[in-house]
């Protein structure tokens, strides 16, 4: 019943400014795909092009076997949920939800049924006669969702749907949307700048930056295996270390990490390490370096360490307490990097992620 969406080499230019640059991806039928990126990355523009609210400069859009590119928004059969709700302010909740059905000239009886069905789905049955300005932000967004779903669209497009809401409401609605999607199974595309939201909700994350797709993949892929420096830095928190390649090793401050034989000699490199990939080593090996524990904060069973390396760099590490072996603030410890992602600096030809050889797990 639900359709996949294929976006093929989509480009959008506003005068001289390129907002979307050769974007391609596929959203499988029934999945949630998150378009994740900072403001200005072009993700909203891509969504609006899929809806038909903007025309691509070049590129094509498909819904299943049907090409959408030349069709008007009215003809596409997509549901769209806006960041600021866009509810019709002079209509009641029920009239808002009913709108898509009225416009298609569905007869009154079936319209009413459908409206009731949807209001129950979004748990706002008692609000049917209220006006948008009498509702809270979260309630308004639920009405917007009901309204978009009423005409049974094949695809649901959500443009930063929780962006205008309080943190608590955002969390609640996120969970609620997840459940709703499981129940309905409509192909959904969600634009967000909140990577937590993307990682939590989506089956597929498309990371965008300055109009281009940086990486598209499952949340775990994007998180554990960033394809570019941008993804590594944007998704999840990361420590950044700068260094260079020398004789098959990457030198990052005091760290010498092997496994870099295939990289250009002398090339500058940047590495990204997640806080939970930094280990305090009991038996140091070649790759480890010394650091002073500048600050230690307890986060339940984790300790959050601020480590200052001999060269002055600062790392933030999340280490389980039992691995600390009694180390305290001010102590000097050996520090080990696990699964670092090193990239050559952009001024070099190759800009690929190279996972350096995995460090053997410390006991």
């Amino acid at each position: 019943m639900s359709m996949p969406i294929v976006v093929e080499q989509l480009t959008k230019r506003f005068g001289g400014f390129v907002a979307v640059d050769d974007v391609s991806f596929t959203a499988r039928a029934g999945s949630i795909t998150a378009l994740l990126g900072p403001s200005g990355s072009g993700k909203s523009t891509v969504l609006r092009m899929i809806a038909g609210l903007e025309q691509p400069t070049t590129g094509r859009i498909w819904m299943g076997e049907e090409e959408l590119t030349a069709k008007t928004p009215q003809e596409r059969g997509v549901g769209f949920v806006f960041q600021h709700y866009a509810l019709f302010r002079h209509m009641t909740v029920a009239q808002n939800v009913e709108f898509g059905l009225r416009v298609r000239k569905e007869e009154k009886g079936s319209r009413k049924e459908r409206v009731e069905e949807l209001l129950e789905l979004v748990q706002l049955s008692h609000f049917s006669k209220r006006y948008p300005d009498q509702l809270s932000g979260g309630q308004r967004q639920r009405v917007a969702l009901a309204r978009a779903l009423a005409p049974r669209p094949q695809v649901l497009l959500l443009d930063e749907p929780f962006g205008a809401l309080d943190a608590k409401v955002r969390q609640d609605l996120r969970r609620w949307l997840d459940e709703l999607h499981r129940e309905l199974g409509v192909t959904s595309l969600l634009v967000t700048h909140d990577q937590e939201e993307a990682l939590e909700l989506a089956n597929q994350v498309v990371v965008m930056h300055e109009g281009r797709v940086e990486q598209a993949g499952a949340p775990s892929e994007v998180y554990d295996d960033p394809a570019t420096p941008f993804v590594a830095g944007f998704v999840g928190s990361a420590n950044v270390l700068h260094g260079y390649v020398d004789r098959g090793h990457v030198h990052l401050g005091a760290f010498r990490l092997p496994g870099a034989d295939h990289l250009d000699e002398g090339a500058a490199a940047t590495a990204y390490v997640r806080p939970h990939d930094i280990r305090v080593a009991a038996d140091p090996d070649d790759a480890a370096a010394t650091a002073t524990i500048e600050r230690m904060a307890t986060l339940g069973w984790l300790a959050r360490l601020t480590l200052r390396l001999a060269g002055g760099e600062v790392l933030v590490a999340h280490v389980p307490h039992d691995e600390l072996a009694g180390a305290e603030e001010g102590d000097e410890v050996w520090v080990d990097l696990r699964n670092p992602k090193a990239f050559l600096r952009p001024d070099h030809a190759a800009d690929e992620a190279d996972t350096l050889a995995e460090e053997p797990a410390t006991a």
Partner: protein
Amino acid sequence: MSRALSVSGSPSTSASRARGRRRLVRGLILGAVVTYVAVLLLLPLVGIVWTALEPGLGIISETLAKPEVRHAFFLTAQITVVTVLVTSVFGLIVAWVLVRQRFVGRSFVNALVDLPFALSPVTVGLACVLLFGIDGWFNEWFTARGIQIIFAVPSMILVTIFICVPFTIREVVPVLEEIGLDEEDASRTLGASLWQTFFRVTFPNIRWALLYGIALTTARAIGEIGAVLIVSGLITGKTETATIYIFTAIEERQTAEAYVVAITLAVVSVVLLVVIEALRRRTEHGRSH
């Protein structure tokens, strides 16, 4: 003026003196302002009603029964209705184009809309003469087809439209800007055609602003004199509006009739004013339901 009870001595006395001074200043300003308005407006209003009704109330029905007078009111109504229709429909179009479309020269067009405010009505009438008068630019074309523009009703309608162009546009533009595109976009994604979107979503949001503009247009059209006087040719029973009737009546010393017509117009205007005030309050609060 009672003294405030004080716990500590002098400070409260000076405070109450300051308060008293402030009250005095306030009273003076208020007094000056009220006097100004009274002298300028209220007195003349009272004066004209008083003078008009001196010959007795019968003068009202006498005057209103005269065919020239009836025709004058009828003509004013005609011109006003056509003006309101034209400026509303085209005003909406212009407002829409200005707010929703982007094109070279948009700010120029925006400035054009305010142009009628910069012109004296006599200049507008003059322009009409230059265009359609004896040596006018288009005179030949129209007289060849037997269409009389100048010194006939069509020219009177044209100048009134010119003068009333800005009202609806200036009222609708800010509202169109403020409500933004989202509702219209939502409507399109839900399957509504352009017309459906306009009537069901956009129009209800600009309703009150449009009505306010129409009310202002009506008041202005009814009261128009300068331009319309120049192009009318003053043909009694044919091209005399209510205001022109007043003008010629005064010239011909039929002051009693002039007063009656004038007061009638004033009454209509005041009623219109009440409507305008109510509408203004509506547009300011932005309630559209």
